[in-house]
């Protein structure tokens, strides 16, 4: 970006070190809470109160390695239904994201690649809905679930997330940008059924958006707290986000266990993120930058 010809090598090198230094400072600040959390989860309660990070002692680097313990994690799994909460979170996040992705992809395809009466009305209606805050429909959606008898069921939590207006908007854009009408036409001429066209031709063309939306929805559902808290009452059905919150209530003073639980909650998503970094970031930023 910066033409090298305009600066002397000495200035350029100093600038580079300053930049690196600043970045290191900010990175440390960003990582500090994580570090603190990891330390808190492997300390005993007494050490928690007396040392901020790792307990000092006679060991290597002046740290008392022998006082670190995995007991918090052990107690967590033994005394709390954490394994079940993890299962619930995984199930809810993956099912919601798969269903929502499919539904929005199909809807985006139908809305953008066909001409039919009422198309403009539906398009404008759903685009307008993107602006509305989800919290507006929280109460009436709860009421609807009550009348359908879906309160305290997984279906009651999953089904409302299957048709987000924002998803339809994203897929409609993706279809318009990446799926040329000619390919569909020639497939039809070749005698392909509509469903086959969708799965074999259209979906591969929007694969980046598929991946990105899948991951956005997965992350959103994994971290969602408000809806599960309201809709699911039976603690055996609750995902990690709610389980951790209630852990704070019951064991307010057991900081080690709370941090251990938090660590377990964010580890899977972090791992997924590391594995699928590029898709994550491109998906989250695609709506704005590319328009």
């Amino acid at each position, binding site marked *: *970006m*910066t*033409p090298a*010809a305009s600066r002397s090598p000495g200035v350029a090198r100093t600038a*580079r070190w300053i*930049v690196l230094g600043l*970045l290191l400072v*900010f*990175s440390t600040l*960003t990582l*500090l*809470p*994580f570090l*603190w*959390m990891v330390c808190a989860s492997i300390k005993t309660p007494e050490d928690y109160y007396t040392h*901020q990070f790792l307990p000092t002692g006679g060991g290597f680097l002046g740290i008392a390695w022998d006082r670190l313990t995995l007991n918090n994690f052990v107690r967590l799994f033994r005394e709390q239904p954490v394994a079940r909460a993890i299962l619930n979170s995984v199930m809810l996040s993956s099912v919601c994201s798969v269903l929502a992705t499919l539904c*929005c992809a*199909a*809807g985006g*395809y*139908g*809305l953008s690649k066909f001409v*039919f009466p009422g198309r403009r009305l*539906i398009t404008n209606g759903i685009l307008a*809905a993107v602006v*509305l*805050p989800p*919290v*507006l*429909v*929280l*109460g009436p*959606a*709860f*009421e*609807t679930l*009550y009348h359908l008898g879906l309160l305290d069921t997984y279906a009651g939590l999953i*089904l409302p997330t299957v*048709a987000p*207006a924002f998803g339809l908007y994203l897929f409609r854009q993706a279809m318009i940008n990446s799926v040329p009408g000619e390919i569909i036409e020639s497939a*039809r001429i070749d005698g392909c059924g*509509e469903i086959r066209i969708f799965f074999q031709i259209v979906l591969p063309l929007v694969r980046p958006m598929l991946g990105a939306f899948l991951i956005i929805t997965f992350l959103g559902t*994994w*971290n969602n*707290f*408000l809806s599960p808290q309201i809709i699911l009452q039976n603690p055996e059905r609750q995902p990690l*986000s709610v389980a951790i*919150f209630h852990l*704070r209530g019951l064991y307010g003073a057991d*900081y080690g266990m*709370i941090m251990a639980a938090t660590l377990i*909650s*964010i580890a899977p998503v*972090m791992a997924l*993120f590391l594995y699928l*970094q590029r898709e994550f*970031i491109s998906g*989250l930023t695609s709506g*704005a*930058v590319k328009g």
Partner: protein
Amino acid sequence: MSSRRPHPAWAPWLFLAPFLLFFAAFGAWPLVRSFVLAFEQTFGPRTTVYVGTLNFRFLFHDPLFWAAVRNTTVFTIGTLVVQVPVALALALLLNRPDLRGRSLFRLIFFSPTIVGSIFVGVIFSLLLEKRTGLVNTLLHAAFHSWNPDFPWVDGFVMPSLLMASLWLSVGFNMSYLLAALQNVPADQLDAAAIDGANAWQRFRHVTLPAIQPVIGILVLLTVVGALQLFDLPFILYADSFGNGPNNAALSIVTYLYQTGFRSGDLGYASAIGWILTIALVLIALGYRWLTRGEDAAA
């Protein structure tokens, strides 16, 4: 045109059906219902009474509602003032072509966003504890006049929330800006350099205008997100159900939640929801109006 084989009439409906079905049930219908509910008073979903405009009339002199509006507005402004410049600064730092390890830094800054607001809330509620929390200990070590008891008075609520929210979202905003910076046309920058412009002038006259649309979108997203603040205060001040000391942490969405799901008055909650929605729609319209020239110019 005539050689094209038209699609069967049922085809679009087949693909739209699942979406439309669930959207109607959980999007459109609740929207309509929320409009009606705003004119009712309920005690849970079973008991409703029509009350006309009572909810809205009460809303206008409800001190708790106005406290929520005040807090949420302060938070939104604070977020804008803090987050966007910091995100821009980080993006600029990361944009340098001679930087090694850019992916690693980006990863680090983005990681709190992945953690999610709930867990950020839990982590920060411990970090901000009196005497044993990291924040208090560091501040006390740095400034001996800082009382390590961290009195939970209203004055400290907003900084705590802003701190947690900054940590949570700065990576997200930074990624947007970084992507935008990397799309700034290099030839324009080269031309400016050849014309003798220094780094600041290049930034101000080439880079800034080029990323202005993205900054605009970021501001919009930040404002919309900040106005819907709920998770952080709810977790940080869980003992008071998200109110905080002297209601200093009460946000509009928290108040909506308390009214609808603790007191069971879904009607009043809907009224609050509509006020918030109207504000958001006005903001979105304002944004469209402000950026109306851009599509033509681009």
